[in-house]
């Protein structure tokens, strides 16, 4: 359903803002946790939110296909990284060695 142009512009702007926020949060999680899977999940979650906002504005077949592809990629990347972590692949090893901080460790002031 196509609404007024100001609403359309608002949705597009909102989607763009969410994409930028997703990139920022993803990088922040990567920097703090050194966990690629978690950082990617955060980024893709925000991208999904942006895609849903775009879908509210202009439900063309192109927008539909884009959102569907984002969902598919999100699922594939999540599945691949989980499988990698279970198998102790590069990403899994990187997390357990370079990740350094076990999740049960209480937060310390020197964490940087």
């Amino acid at each position: 359903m196509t609404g007024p142009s100001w609403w359309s512009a608002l949705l597009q702007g909102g989607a763009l803002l969410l994409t930028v926020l997703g990139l920022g949060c993803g990088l922040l999680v990567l920097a703090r946790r050194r966990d690629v899977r978690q950082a990617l999940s955060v980024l893709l979650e925000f991208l999904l939110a942006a895609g849903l906002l775009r879908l509210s504005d202009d439900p063309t077949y192109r927008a539909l296909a884009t959102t569907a592809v984002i969902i598919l990629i999100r699922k594939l990347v999540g599945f691949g990284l989980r499988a990698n972590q279970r198998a102790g692949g590069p990403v899994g090893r990187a997390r357990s060695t370079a990740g350094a901080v076990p999740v049960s460790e209480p937060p310390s002031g020197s964490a940087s």
Partner: protein
Amino acid sequence: MARAAAEVPDSILSEDLLRRYVDLLVRLVEAAGAIVIFLGAVLAAVKFVRAAFRGRRSEEFVRVRLGLGRYLTLGLEFQLASDVLSTAIAPTFGEIGKLAAIAAIRTLLNYFLGKEIDHERAEVEEEERDPDRTSRSSATDT
């Protein structure tokens, strides 16, 4: 029955009027969904930043992600409601097809998001019950 419907004057419930009312409702409900998604994402971003500066614990980030997933699910519920409303006024076959595609995507997403939230919540609860489990497993991995 059909005669009774035909006797309703156009000024009270004309097709055009009904279409306009439903159209307005669809826009309102769709807008509510979009607002929930947007506000949920912004709130989650703020919480991510706060969690990053407070500490590096994984549960904090997972909890914020779970919160964002819940907002997305809530927004999707609104949008699905607007899709259902739209079926009352979708006149052409092309519009119905598009509506079906959107509803299918949103329903699938809702389902997967719900499953993911359940899975991650179970993981967080398990970690809270046995906090040493993750550190033990990472030690055995290496």
